[in-house]
């Protein structure tokens, strides 16, 4: 029963909350979507926290994604022990980097007076989730070797079953590892909290900057045609206001 709650109900609930909540916040509460950078108030310690934290997460995120999307390739790569070792050590190093980063960020938030002023209640939640998530992740990696291989065998089928609406939790529930279970549960908790916290900021990663032209000029009305009403005939409105 508990297993069912944690590995079936929670994932669906959190994915649902995530989807509806993020779309609502993005569309109707656009002003509140921000990374809430605090570098302006304190820059030096942020560097030592934010850089290792984000780059660590960046790599780990894509690591998880690849293992989820292409489990066979990961297994094939791991066929050679040296390559397995390289992969595991790299992943663990970036995990440690994220861990050190998040510790420094927490310390900065706790001790810098200016940063305390811009720390909300939800930021406390954010850092608790992140600490649980990263620590449990490191424990899994350390104790349950070699994760990059069994991830493909246990976690990928489970996650896939969630996404095809045919939840199969047996594989994951049968694994005898508390840290892995915590890691999965806290991951879905994190997802549920995205719409209510600063986690929103990675959903709005400015990918389109890479292809848009540098300068942006926006006309509020079509300067060569008489403006038309949205409700009476077609004619495009500026999307920027």
């Amino acid at each position, binding site marked *: 029963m508990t297993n069912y709650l944690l590995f079936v109900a929670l994932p669906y609930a959190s994915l649902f909350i995530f989807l509806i909540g993020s779309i609502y916040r993005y569309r109707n509460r656009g002003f509140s979507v921000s990374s809430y950078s605090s570098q302006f108030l304190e820059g030096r310690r*942020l560097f030592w926290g934010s850089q290792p934290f984000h780059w660590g997460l960046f790599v780990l995120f894509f690591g998880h994604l690849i293992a989820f999307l292409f489990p066979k390739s990961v297994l094939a790569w791991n066929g050679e022990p040296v390559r397995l070792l390289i992969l595991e050590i790299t992943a663990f190093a970036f995990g440690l980097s994220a861990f050190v980063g998040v510790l420094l960020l927490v310390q900065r938030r706790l001790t810098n007076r200016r940063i305390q002023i811009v720390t909300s*209640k939800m*930021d406390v939640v954010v850092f608790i989730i992140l600490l649980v998530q990263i620590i449990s992740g490191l424990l899994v990696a350390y104790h349950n070797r070699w994760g990059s291989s069994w991830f493909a065998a246990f976690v990928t089928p489970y996650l896939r079953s969630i996404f095809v609406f045919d939840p199969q939790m047996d594989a994951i529930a049968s694994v005898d590892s508390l840290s892995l279970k915590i890691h999965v549960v806290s991951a879905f908790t994190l997802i549920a909290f995205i719409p209510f916290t600063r986690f929103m900021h990675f959903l709005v990663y400015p990918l389109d900057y890479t292809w848009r032209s540098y300068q942006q000029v926006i006309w*509020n009305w079509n300067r060569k045609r008489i403006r*038309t009403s*949205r*409700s009476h005939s077609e004619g495009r409105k500026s999307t920027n206001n």
Partner: protein
Amino acid sequence: MDIRSQIAMVFHLDKCIGCHTCSIACKNIWTDRKGAEYMWWNNVETKPGTGYPTKWEDQEIYKGGWEKNGDTVSLKGAGKFKGLKNIFHNPHLPVLDDYYEPWTYKYQDLFTAPEGNDQPTARPVSLVTGEHVDVQSGPNWDDDLGGSPDYARQDVNLDKLTAAEQEAMFQLERMTFFYLPRICNHCLNPACVASCPSGAIYKRGEDGIVLINQQRCRAWRMCVTACPYKKTYYNWHTGKSEKCVLCYPRLESGQAPACFHSCVGRIRYLGPLLYDADKIEQAAAAPEDQLVDAQMDIYLDPFDPEIIRQAKENGIADSTIEAAQRSPVWKFVKEWKLALPLHPEFRTLPNLFYVPALLPTMAKVNDGVYDSTGKSLWNGVESNRLPMRYLASLFSAGNTEKIVAVMKRLMAVRTHRRSVTVGDTSREEAAAALEEAGIDADTADAIFRLTSLATFDERFVIPAAHREESIEMLESTADVKGSTGFGFKERPQRGL
């Protein structure tokens, strides 16, 4: 040719009295809010001085503006690659201490302090943390050369002068300063727009005002780095960047922006200029000594029938063209060539032009004797109080010829008017000065009139279109029947 219209500005520095009324008018309307207390969308600096934020002109520190890169330009400290690489921590971001920690006073203490032997005092408290602060600096700490050794001598523009020239500037007898009021330049090649990863900053096509969409800003804080004038500010409370909006709601209803309207010295002029958007890139990438000329080439003659025809074809309203013809900016910048852009070497093509301060000398110090018995009333422009090279570093990317030409014109107007109204300079002398400056007496009179006697309507020529279409700028009128017509319907509160 792609003709567009731009609201442009002229500040006449000889007239600025450094009263900061403009800054206060702006603060009262726009930045008297939590997180914005430290922002001065309009600020007034004393030159020589380090300005606000401290040493903002030194792009070795702040990496603002564009760099020439072959036939085009690229951002110095931001852009697609650098911006996304530095998104987690921006190494070139000015922080609060580069501006100053805003503060207020605990006025209540004056009333609630218990009786004692001393006068109660209102201690300063930080507007960020609410705690007591020892005030160390402010946005105009070096006003009127206050604390000059620490501030004025750090002025980045002094680097272009020889040691002797610098010493001369700080000799007690010669010491001089002028005020430099600054707002956003609403540039033709805005570095802030180009640097914004989320595409929240844009230039309005109709009038060229540069705005930040508060709904789309994500606090990637690249614009703060990219603007070489440091005229975008990060609101640490709302997590959004903000900048001067040129009081667009006032402009749209036909009023001058607050800092213009309130200017005590009446130094400010505003009006549209027509320009050719196709030439922007080429002008921004011009060699340094030709930057001013290249920028001037962009602006088009609003009296030329062919320009008028093409402007109309491009959807520019008749009222805007008519305003461009009456624009005081057109006169100062193009017709009379008296106003120059601030730091054109930043290559953003700013639309705020300055008539440099003349500061002539009427005497010479010879062996400690103050000698005012020269041949003419004023000494030549080369012996002005400010070295031409200093002004050139500010207003012409180091091209002193440009500055000397402006100075000669300004001087000629003075000599001419002196001979007309006072009569102690001879007609011949005035005629010679005009001749040398390349203007005739009528032009000198027109310059004099617009400089000294201009009425409100002559100083601010705001195209009528804005008044009539103020709602249409934002929405189609049919859609907003019965509503206010403004897009921002959510409370601007910090989120989670």
